[in-house]
C-alpha cells in the first residue's frame, strides 16, 4: 500500500476539520467571554444561495472621526474605539490604526476617508433567519421601518473580534417576535 496518498488524504481531512473548528473556537470564545454592546441599526432582508435567508444588518453609525494626527488608508484594517452612552447604546468614538490600551474596541475596515473622518465597514453584516420566518421578517420590517425605537444589534466583543448574537426590538428578541407573529 502506498503511504503518500494516505498521508495527503489525512492532511486534507485534518485541514477540512481545522478550518471550521478554528472559526468555532474563535467565535465561541467571543460569545462566552466578550462584552455585550448594543448598536442601533437597520436590517433589510436579502438571500444568500449558500447560507439561506439573512437580514442584512447595517448599524446606523456609518462613519467616525479619525484620531488626531493619524492618516488612514481606504481599505486598511483599523480599530474602532467603542463608547457606551447613557441610553445603553454603543457608538464608535474614533478610529485608530492601533488598538486602545483599555476599553472595548472592534477591528473594522476603513472605507472612504475625508475631512478627518472615515466610513466604517463593520465586521458583521448579516443575521441568518429561518426560511419560514424570513417572509414574516420582510413584512415586519416594512411595518416597523419608521419606528422610532429602531432595531438593536446585540454584539459580543472581545479583543477586537465581534460576533452578532441577536437582534432585538424594545428589549425583545427578534426571533421571538417573528415566531409569535407566525403562530
Amino acid at each position, binding site marked *: 500500500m502506498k503511504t503518500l496518498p494516505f498521508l495527503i488524504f489525512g*492532511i486534507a481531512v485534518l485541514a*477540512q476539520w481545522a*478550518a471550521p473548528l478554528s472559526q468555532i473556537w474563535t467565535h465561541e470564545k467571543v460569545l462566552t467571554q466578550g462584552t455585550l454592546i448594543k448598536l442601533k441599526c437597520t436590517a433589510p432582508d436579502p438571500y444568500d444561495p449558500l*447560507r439561506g435567508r439573512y437580514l442584512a444588518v447595517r448599524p446606523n453609525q456609518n462613519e467616525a472621526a479619525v484620531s488626531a494626527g493619524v492618516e488612514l488608508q481606504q481599505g486598511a484594517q483599523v480599530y474602532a474605539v467603542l463608547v457606551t452612552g447613557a441610553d445603553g447604546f454603543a457608538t464608535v468614538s474614533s478610529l485608530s490604526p492601533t488598538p486602545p490600551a483599555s476599553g472595548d474596541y472592534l477591528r473594522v475596515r476603513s472605507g472612504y476617508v475625508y475631512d478627518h473622518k472615515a466610513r466604517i465597514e463593520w465586521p458583521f453584516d448579516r443575521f*441568518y433567519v429561518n*426560511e419560514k420566518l424570513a417572509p414574516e421578517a420582510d413584512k415586519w420590517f416594512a411595518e416597523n421601518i419608521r419606528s422610532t425605537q429602531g432595531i438593536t444589534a446585540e454584539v459580543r466583543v472581545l479583543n477586537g473580534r465581534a460576533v452578532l448574537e441577536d437582534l432585538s426590538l424594545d428589549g425583545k428578541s427578534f426571533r421571538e417576535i417573528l415566531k409569535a407573529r407566525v403562530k
Partner: protein
Amino acid sequence: MNTSHQRWLLEQLPQWEREGLLTPDAARALRERNALDDSQPGAAQIVMGALGALLIGSGLIAVIGYNWDDFSRPVRLLFAFLPLLLTQLFSFRVLKRGAASSAWVRETAALLQALATGACIALVSQIYNLGGEWPDFLFWWFMLSLPLVWVLRSHAVAIFYLIAIAVWSVSQVDRGSPWFDSPLLYPLLLLGLLPCWPGWKNQAPLSLSMRWVMTISAIFGFCSAAVFASQSGIGFFSDHAQSFLWLWTLTAAAFALFPLNQNGIEEPLRRKPQVELGALWLLGYGVAITFHDVSDDIIRGALHALQLPWCWGLLTVLAVFVLLAVVRKRWAVLSIASVALLPLIACPFVQNTDKNYGTLLSWLATLHLAAIGITLIVLEFAGKKGAPRLGATLLSVLIIARMADSHFSLLAKGVAFIGVGVAFLTFNILMSRQLKLKHSAAV
C-alpha cells in the same frame, strides 16, 4: 486518438476481420495499440457520478440554508460535521480499495467530500452570523478540496477547482488588495494541479474537456492578473488603463506557444484549445492594431506596461517558450505569436506629439500580417505544415480593413470587396481540389 475514437475502432475490428479487410495479426496489433485504459473514467461515468454527488451536495446545502433555529448551536454544528465525516470515511474506503474502485465511484466520493466541505464552512458561518465576502469563502473551499484531485484523481473536483480559481481571480481584480489576495496568485493556484499534468508520474494525456476548462480558466485567471497588475502606479481615471490589452496579448502568445512534446504538436488543432484561442486573439488583435486609433492606444498602453514587473515576467516566460518553439520548429504558431511583440519594436521609434504616436505600429501590423498570410499559404505549397485557408482569410480581412478606413469612393470600395470575395472563393475551390488530389494519391 481519443477514447471515443479508440472505442469505435475496436468495435469495427471484428467486422473488418470477417470481411477480410484485416488479417488476424493486424487486428491483434491494432487491439493492443488501442487498448482502452479502464482506469480513466468515461464521460458518461463522470457525468452520472458528478450529477449524483451534485444533487446530494446541493440538497445538503439547501437543508442547511433552511436554518434550523429550533435546534441548539451544538446540534446544528453536528449537522455541519456529520456529512463531512461520512464523506471522508467514504473517500477513505475508496482510497483504500485503490484500483479496485471504479472510476465513477472515485469521482463521486471526491465530489461529495468537496461539497460537504463547502457546506460545513457555510453552516458554521451561518450559525455564527459571520459576514465576510463570498470570494473568501470560495478561496477556502477550493483550497481544502484541492488534495482530493491529487489523491482520488478526480476530474470533477479538478474542474470545480479550475472554475473556482478563475471566478476567485476575477472577483479580486479590484485595486488595493495585497498581492497574496489578488489575481497575481492565480499562477500559483494553477500550479496546484501540477500532479495531474501529463508526464507527472505516468499521468495519462488530459481529456479534451479538461483541456478546454483549463484553458478557459487560465484565460480568466491570467487576464484578471494582467488587469490587476496594470492598475498599479496609475490614477483612477488614467488613460494608461488600456495597457492590460497588450498584457492580454502577451498572455495569448504564451498560450499559443505553450511547450508541447512531439505527440502534442502532431495532434489536430481542435485538441489544443490553448493554441486555438491564443491564435484567435492574436489575429483579432493584429487586425485591430492595423487601425490607427487602436494602435495609438496600444502604444500608450505598452509604454506603461513596460514599467510593470508582471509585464517583464510575461516577456521572460514568452522568451523561454519562443526558444522551445524554435527547437520544435513550430513556425506557423511562432509567426502568429510574433504579432504580440510588434509594440515592443515600435515603442523605441515613436514620439508622443500632441498625444499621438504616429502610424508606425499600424503599418508595421499591416505588413506583418500580410507577411504571415503569405507565409501560411507558401508553407503549404512548399510541402510543409501551413494553413493556406487561414492565410487567405487573413489577407482578405486585411484588404477589407484597409479599404474600410480608406478615403476611396463607395464604388471603388464595392469593386474591391467583390474582387477580394471572388479571389477568396477561387482560392478555396483550388485548395479543395488540391486536397482531393492529395487524398486520392494517398489512397
